[in-house]
């Protein structure tokens, strides 16, 4: 098993959690109901916690003494490996929920599959985090269904969110060379299998929500290879500023 491929994979997992956690955390105090403030903080908290675990693993595999914070706060955009979906702007609360739903529906089977990884450190992180991911998935699916099959405006907003975000889902579901190799080695699950599970979860939920995925939308991807949208740079500028403004300080 190649350490470089595994390091790359750990970065992707960690960056997905980090960037989505960062996005979600911006809702604190601004959500549409107090319960949602609490729930969003909870999602962000779990994601940041998971980011720490994956990035620590990536740093250890790299072997250059970079810890999770160094990776989170001192890389430039091109070195980030998150998928494009998670860096998309929060938009309205419906877009935030839809982004979460599409991500969670991938995250849960992925973590469940990873829990059976031949690589112990990967299996340990996945086993530790799969349950909280499932909890968030159930919650985001429930809200997508209720708002889709809700009032006229909520349905319209959720459909808009789906149209907007659907093209980004494909990136999560298709393996590149790194992932194909790791799957072959039993380190990560086969992404084709994850895609099936994703579809099996997402399709009935959207149907219940009375929402229709856009037809023939081309997949937008590149994040896993560090080719991001212009949105990421701004996320990083804000997130990293303090670390970079006081280099070498401990906090």
């Amino acid at each position, binding site marked *: 098993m190649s350490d470089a491929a595994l390091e790359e994979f750990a970065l992707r997992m960690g960056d997905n959690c*980090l960037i989505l956690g*960062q996005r979600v*955390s*911006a809702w*604190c*105090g*601004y*959500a*549409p*109901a*107090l*319960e*949602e*403030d*609490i729930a969003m*903080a*909870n999602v*962000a*908290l779990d994601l*940041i*916690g998971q*980011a*720490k675990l994956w*990035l620590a693993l990536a740093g250890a595999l790299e072997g250059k003494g970079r810890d*999770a*914070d160094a990776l*989170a*706060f001192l890389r430039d955009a091109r070195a980030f490996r998150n998928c494009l979906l998670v860096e998309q702007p929060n938009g*309205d*609360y*419906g877009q935030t929920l839809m982004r979460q739903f599409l991500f969670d529906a991938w995250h849960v089977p992925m973590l469940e599959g990873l829990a059976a990884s031949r690589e112990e450190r990967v299996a340990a992180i996945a086993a530790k985090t799969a349950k909280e991911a499932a909890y968030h998935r159930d919650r985001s699916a429930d809200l997508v269904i*209720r*708002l889709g*099959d*809700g*009032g006229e*405006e*909520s*349905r319209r*907003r959720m459909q808009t969110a789906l149209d907007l975000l659907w093209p980004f889902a494909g990136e999560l579901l298709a393996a590149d060379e790194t992932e194909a190799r790791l799957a072959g080695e039993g380190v990560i699950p086969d992404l084709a299998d994850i895609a099936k599970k994703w579809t099996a979860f997402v399709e009935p939920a959207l149907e219940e929500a009375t929402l229709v995925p856009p037809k023939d939308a081309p997949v937008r991807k590149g994040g896993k290879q560090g080719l991001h949208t212009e949105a990421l740079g701004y996320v990083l500028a*804000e*997130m990293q*500023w*303090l*670390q970079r403004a*006081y280099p*070498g*300080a*401990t*906090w």
Partner: protein
Amino acid sequence: MAPEERAFQQKIDADVKIEPKDWMPEGYRKTLIRQISQHAHSEIVGQLPEGNWITRAPTLERKAILLAKVQDEAGHGLYLYCAAETLGISRDQMTEQLLSGKAKYSSIFNYPTLTWADIGAIGWLVDGAAIMNQVPLQRCSYGPYARAMIRICKEESFHQRQGYDIMMKLCRGTPEQKEMAQDALDRWWRPALMMFGPPDDQSVHSAQSMAWKIKLNSNDELRQKFVDQTVPQAEYLGLKIPDPDLKWNEARGHYDFGELDWSEFYEVIKGNGPCNRERMEARRKAWEDGAWFREGLMAHARKKEARRMAAE
């Protein structure tokens, strides 16, 4: 005094808790609603100054701690709204009072968080002062409020320790970090002391609230206690309290400290603090932008109910 009112006061004097279904004087109910909802609003608005640094926290650990703290505050808001609801007011009514400016929240949250050290100072000083105010309220006469306070105080003392820990890291850090910590103390010290309310001789409502045991100590008493507790903590950090009149008074067994400029306090209460407008705008925007979400959920609930009825 009517017999039921006498019985009520006797229960209070005997430290028996008043529960939602018990008889209570209108003034007691109203005062409690005002006090509890104001406290709840403070938790809600209090998310904003700290939330301002979540996306810019300097490490993942600090980001997680801050997220958890702000989440706790929202949770406190929730308990407190529930406690107030037992007195016959709905959460929506309270929200409306907040957004219309009719209800107040703690003035401290009308100050901006300008550096990361402010997150430390808020935990240390603002949560410290809040605990000082809230610990006695665990013994207050109204059961739901007293019980909410027990839960809240436990979490707040955790927050205070985390805030102090941030200050400690800064004070043991680079000269720039230490300067940042001192600057935060300089800005938050006086507003924190004002959190105990105006001096006793200017304080209204106090006597009745004390008799009802919904206020258990005087403002000045708590303020003195806070100063006595905090000065040694500042010394341990190596920070200087920004008060030239501050000194230990051997005779009183307390620290003497300088007069506070209460005109600033009243200006902030009137709405003219540094961030009043921004705080209220943020809350209003959150509420208005979220209207479709709340309505959507209600529409879904109605549909579901209609389907259930049709299926029966």
